[in-house]
């Protein structure tokens, strides 16, 4: 960046150039809404407590990482429902291979990343070469993985060595290591989408595949790569979860609803479900909104199902507000 000028003009220009996604208004509203509830009912104990605030971020890690991958495939006009069982697969396979031994860790990590890349590759190939709708394709691969791991592993399988738990529990100064990883992933996602050719081409494919094709892009390859990246983010989420839980089980993916929630947070973040528009910063806000909601309701002792009702409301309201906005812009 050459805008080293400290004057207000440069700053203004900088803010305009990054164009803050409108979902951040929702995030701020939710934050202050939660803060007000806290003030009335808990005397400010929740939002005044740095540990709880940090916990909001830690809660966001698992969903946040996989949502980065989901954002990419959705920007490309595709979707990935199989992330949920890639997470499960990663958790059971890694703890099964590690068996509590630190020496097994590299082997296990290599294996799960290879498996993840394989699933992404298969998804991408089926979608682009066989022209099967992405929803159906990834629903299918999701079911296949689910059946295989559920028939092979029935319960907690193996364990991770103490040394591997640093991913889930270590801190750098006051900041949890996993939160740093989350922000690195978000930053990497932003970089790939807005600063690389692959990113620019992904927006092209998602925006209008025919336009992309007529501009000479290899549309199939772009989408396949996006699916591989998405599955790899699911693997990373799986590793984070297994290091938190210390062992893997086939149900950790579906228990967290990572398929639908990663899609929901992406869309709440302003990415168009049809593709071609959006980005990871919006998705981060979507993930944080869900975490703040959960934490606030949890701490206040409200019925947890009410928080789910609120999630539903937010999804609908956020997307409706974007539609109205874009209609106004068009007029």
């Amino acid at each position, binding site marked *: 960046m050459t805008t080293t000028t400290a004057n207000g003009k440069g700053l203004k220009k900088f803010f305009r150039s990054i164009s803050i996604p409108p979902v951040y208004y929702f995030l701020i509203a939710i934050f202050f809404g939660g803060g007000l509830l806290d003030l009335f009912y808990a005397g400010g104990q929740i939002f005044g407590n740095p540990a709880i605030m940090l916990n909001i971020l830690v809660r966001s890690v698992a969903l946040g990482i996989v949502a980065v991958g989901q954002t990419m495939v959705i920007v490309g006009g595709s979707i990935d429902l199989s992330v949920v069982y890639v997470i499960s697969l990663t958790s059971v396979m890694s703890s099964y291979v590690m068996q509590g031994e630190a020496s097994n860790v590299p082997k296990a990590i290599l294996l799960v990343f290879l498996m993840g890349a394989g699933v992404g590759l298969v998804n991408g190939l089926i979608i682009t070469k066989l022209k099967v709708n992405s929803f159906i394709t990834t629903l299918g691969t999701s079911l296949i993985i689910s059946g295989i791991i559920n028939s092979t592993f029935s319960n907690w399988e193996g364990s991770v060595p103490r040394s591997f738990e640093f991913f889930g529990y270590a801190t750098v100064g006051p900041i949890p290591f996993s939160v740093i990883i989350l922000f690195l992933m978000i930053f990497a996602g932003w970089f790939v989408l807005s600063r690389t050719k692959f990113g620019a081409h992904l927006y092209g494919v998602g925006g209008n595949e025919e336009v992309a094709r007529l501009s000479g892009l290899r549309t199939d390859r772009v989408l396949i790569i996006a699916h591989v990246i998405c599955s790899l983010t699911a693997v990373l989420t799986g590793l984070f979860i297994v290091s938190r839980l210390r062992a893997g089980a086939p149900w950790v993916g579906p228990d967290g609803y990572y398929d639908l929630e990663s899609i929901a947070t992406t869309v709440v973040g302003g990415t168009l479900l049809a593709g*071609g528009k959006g980005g990871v910063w919006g998705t981060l806000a979507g993930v944080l909104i869900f975490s703040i909601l959960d934490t606030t309701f949890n701490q206040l002792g409200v019925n947890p199902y009410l928080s789910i009702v609120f999630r539903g409301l937010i999804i609908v309201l956020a997307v409706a507000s974007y539609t109205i906005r874009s209609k106004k812009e068009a007029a």
Partner: protein
Amino acid sequence: MSEEEKQKMMNERKPLMEVRNITKRFPGVVALDDVLVKFYPGEVHAVVGENGAGKSTLMKIMAGAYIPDKGRMLLEDEEVSFSHPVQAQEKGISIIYQEFNLLPERSVAQNIFLGREPTFLGMIDNRKIRQMARKVLADIGVEGTIPTSKLVGNLSVAEQQQVEIAKAISLDAKILIMDEPTAALTINEVKMLDELIKRLKERGIAIIFISHRLGEVFQISDTITVLKDGKLVGTVKTNEVTSEDVVSMMVGRILDHYFPPLGVPEDFGEVILSVRNASNDFLKNINFDLKKGEVLGIAGLQGSGRTEMAQAVFGVVPFKTGSVTLDGKNQTIKSPSKAIKKQMGFVTEDRRSEGLCPQQPIRDNILLTVRSIQTMLTPISKNGIRRSPDLVPRLGEEVDIRTDSYDREVQFLSGGNQQKVILSKWLASEADVFIFDEPTRGIDVQAKASIHDMIRDLTKQGRAVLMISSELPEIIGMSDRILVMRDGKITGELPPESSELDIMLLATGHNGDNGSNDSKGKGEK
């Protein structure tokens, strides 16, 4: 250099591109038949002809979107053939369709260089891409008006077109093909496009454009090629002909069948539909009467407002001002369901998307409109409604739907049979006023004749028909009166069996002094 030498040089210059003996067949039609045209550098070449003359097919073949069945293409004396538009693009042939090939959610610069982004250390060089975009926009002389970082979706149609042209220029286009470039532009924007085309011309780029508007053809082009029924009528120098010459080259298509006899004015009943001073966003001051037993033909070029008028009468996009009288009663028809209840029927232009539910059986398609005006709780019966339980077989026989079973999904029927299903749908709802929009488009000759007979039968039974058609022989062969539209206005009314020339002159606005006086004279006989 003397005038003579100049002329000689003009004659000796080499064509940039030549198409020779190009033939292209589609199922049931020969879209292009042995067409031969030469395109010269720095020349603006207009391609004109009625709908279905083969203009778009020729352009798509040159741009690599279609592969010709026969014939050769020479680009700078070298034979070329394309199996994909990208190949044509690489050889310097770019095409701009009416529907732009742009990404609305991406910036101007990103759109121009999609797939060719400049990078620096693996990263997209955002500064360079904007710089390059500015340079291309400056090249075509529009640098000041379009910010390179603006989203394309937020630009006006004219600006988007400029972005498309910039993209083509950045691809080093030698030949730029434009399909109806002025159709969506305002008068000022057309002037700007004209200037832009002149600048491209000076760079030696060959510009080919399809247009229906003869005024602009004469204003912009150097050469005009006229196609008719897929055949080349001729290529002429613009300054050596008049618009009447060109129109007379375009018209006079061969009749492929005989039409049923026209109605007899004595048999026409009272006025059933009457529209007075009606306007909306597209239409200006529409006035006409439709009598029982009459076929009123609506002619006009694409985009002249014919379909919009049908949609306004039927309540799809209603009139905003003015009055509509049906059967002597003043009505405001704000929705299709109101129109159906007032006994109107609309056989739309696009059968597959607006007229039929392709995956549903014939019987449900026929009963669609009658069911739609029933209450939610009316029980559904298989073959009809309570009043007439055998509606489906009765209508099926009446309009002669050729099928082994009414359970067959309509997607498997021929175009002619599908049209009959749509017709029975409206007969089922007992419509008195029928609007037909391009009733025989994409239908083979035999089915065409039977649909024309059916339209005539409707009027013999005292129903009234408003028929929109781009096929001038159809308009002339079927209409008891002809209205011609242009730019959202009715520009004139012609008596039955007027000539194609008269209609085209009104439709293109080239009847003497560009408009209204003459047409009025003809209209009020």
